[in-house]
């Protein structure tokens, strides 16, 4: 016996070219929609991961024009403004603070790096406090420095890979020509740490000829009032307070315009595809008016015809949506690369995160919108009167 589903399916096969083109439209719009929804989630997840990986929630940095600092860093030289290390003491005793760690970020010009030279960046950290903030850091080889003044370095995985270093090898700090021994290489973290070279704070201060720091990382106690702490820290002279929640919000705001625009495009793509669906089904109904009339003489109720035509819409939208979602999964990496090339800042990690839940959401959305669009052609088909459609000689 033949079912209504089979009848609907066979009807779609009667005009293969038309059905294929409509399917392609739905597939493309589904692909775009699910990729963009995946990007929305992936970006935020990746950003959260990057930020969580910092180990601390607040940073205190020297006040000064930020653009200048950034430009000077990019073009070479230690153009950063500094803060006094004694500031650490005024922060660590605050009731909201769990731990603090002083950090010195320094950059040296390396004439042999890249085309015309480049920056080599170093992170001076305090052995007593920094590793404790990041207990999740694992070592591929070796471990942390032996003391706070050692002429030693710990390298991120990719920094070590780039320079072909293993534990026991030496590296040279350019400009200053100071040799450091590699004592540890970290496992890949998928964050900025992979490209970082860590050096004991005092060692880096000595190399740079300064006794100041650039940043203080602050870990807040679990139930503490971070806003209160931020406000108090703002009172400290010549410093900026940055919370990573703020950084995240700012970055999200930076790309939010792009997100909204791109999401709008996805929605428009879906609507255009649906117009295609309505057109296809409606044309099909108008071409089959006589046939629908005959079906009614066979005993098909208006509701049967409505469901039959609606099933055609359902098949088109489901197949198109599934194909689009499958393509999105397959090409997720390419979508990722595309996004990275366009965005001003892209966190490390999977930018386009498509999972089953998202796929189902897209499927439901496309099918839902499709079924809503398909109501009119289906209703029109249901209203066909057999006599109006069957040719008669009266």
């Amino acid at each position, binding site marked *: 016996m033949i079912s209504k589903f089979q009848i609907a399916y066979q009807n779609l096969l009667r005009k293969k070219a038309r059905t294929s083109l409509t399917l392609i439209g739905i597939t493309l719009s589904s692909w775009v929609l699910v990729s963009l929804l995946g990007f929305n989630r992936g970006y935020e997840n990746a950003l959260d991961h990057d930020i969580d990986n910092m180990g601390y929630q607040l940073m205190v940095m020297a006040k000064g024009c*930020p653009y200048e600092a*950034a430009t000077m860093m990019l073009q070479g030289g230690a153009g950063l403004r500094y803060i006094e290390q004694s500031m650490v003491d005024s922060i660590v005793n605050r009731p909201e603070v769990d731990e603090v760690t002083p950090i010195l970020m320094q950059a040296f010009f390396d004439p042999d*790096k890249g085309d015309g030279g480049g920056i080599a960046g170093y*992170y001076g950290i305090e052995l007593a406090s920094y590793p404790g903030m990041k207990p999740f850091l694992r070592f591929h080889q070796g471990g942390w420095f032996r003391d706070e003044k050692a002429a030693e370095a710990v390298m991120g995985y990719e920094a070590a*890979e780039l320079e072909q270093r293993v534990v026991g090898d*030496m590296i040279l700090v350019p400009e200053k020509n100071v*040799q450091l021994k590699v004592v540890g290489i970290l496992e890949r973290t998928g964050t900025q740490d992979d490209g970082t070279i860590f050096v004991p704070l005092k060692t880096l201060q000595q190399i740079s000829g300064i006794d100041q720091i650039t940043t203080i990382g602050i870990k807040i106690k679990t139930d503490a009032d971070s806003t209160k702490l931020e406000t108090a820290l703002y009172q400290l002279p010549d410093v900026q307070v940055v919370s990573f929640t703020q*950084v995240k919000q700012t970055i999200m705001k930076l790309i939010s315009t792009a997100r909204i625009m791109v999401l709008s495009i996805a929605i428009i793509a879906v609507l255009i595809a649906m117009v295609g669906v309505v057109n296809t089904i409606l044309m099909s109904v108008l071409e089959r008016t006589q046939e629908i009339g005959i079906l009614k003489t066979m005993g098909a109720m208006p509701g049967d015809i409505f469901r039959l035509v609606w099933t055609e819409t359902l098949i088109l939208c489901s197949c198109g949506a599934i194909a689009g979602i499958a393509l999105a999964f397959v090409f997720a990496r390419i979508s990722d690369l595309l996004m990275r090339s366009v965005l001003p800042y*892209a966190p*490390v990690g999977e930018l386009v995160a498509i999972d089953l839940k998202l796929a189902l959401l897209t499927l439901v959305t496309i099918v839902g919108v499709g079924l809503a669009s398909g109501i009119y052609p289906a209703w029109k088909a249901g209203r066909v009167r057999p006599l109006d459609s069957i040719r008669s000689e009266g």
Partner: protein
Amino acid sequence: MRPMLRQWKFVFSLSLLFLSVFATPLSAAISCELNYPAGDVARLFPDSNGFTTSDFSFSGRGGAPLLRKVEARLGGVPALYAPLDVPYVLYEVLKGKKRVGYVHGVNQKGQFGVLEVFLSLDLNGTIKAFYLQRISGAWGRKFTSPRFGKQFVGLDLRDFEQYDTVAAKGTGKVASIANPAPEAKTDFLGILRALKKNLVLMDEFFYSAGKGAQ
């Protein structure tokens, strides 16, 4: 509004800072590429007028057995990081539509950092030019000078096969290459090893496979 704007700018810059200063390429394995291909190829192959770029790796051409064969030819010293996946970039040099040679680079461990050693080769595998793109250390200039590089012009794989780059002993033309910086013996030997690795790879992937000659 103004303080908020400053804060926003600051945080934006911070983000750029993270990205530009501390970020490194995220490729799974680091490849050896020319920093400025158009200019570099023209300089290394003066009578060329174009080039194409392709890449190859062990995992694409023979896998672990081939890697072991190459390492045996180099004296049994295993490579450092993810050798199977490392993509080797090959620049095929053209004159008109005709292929006239290759430019190819390898990474090698040096004393304070990586050595990036490039060779330009003719279709028979003879060295036409030597280019040290990267070296760390005060003695860097001594190895990047034209005087040092000229010593390699005209050599080929046969010359390097007479020299053990692990033991630093051997005969023939390679043995008579002068070290311009006796204080940098590690880097000097590293450069020789890189050259041999370069030639062996080219031999295994192209010349012996019959792809080198026109």
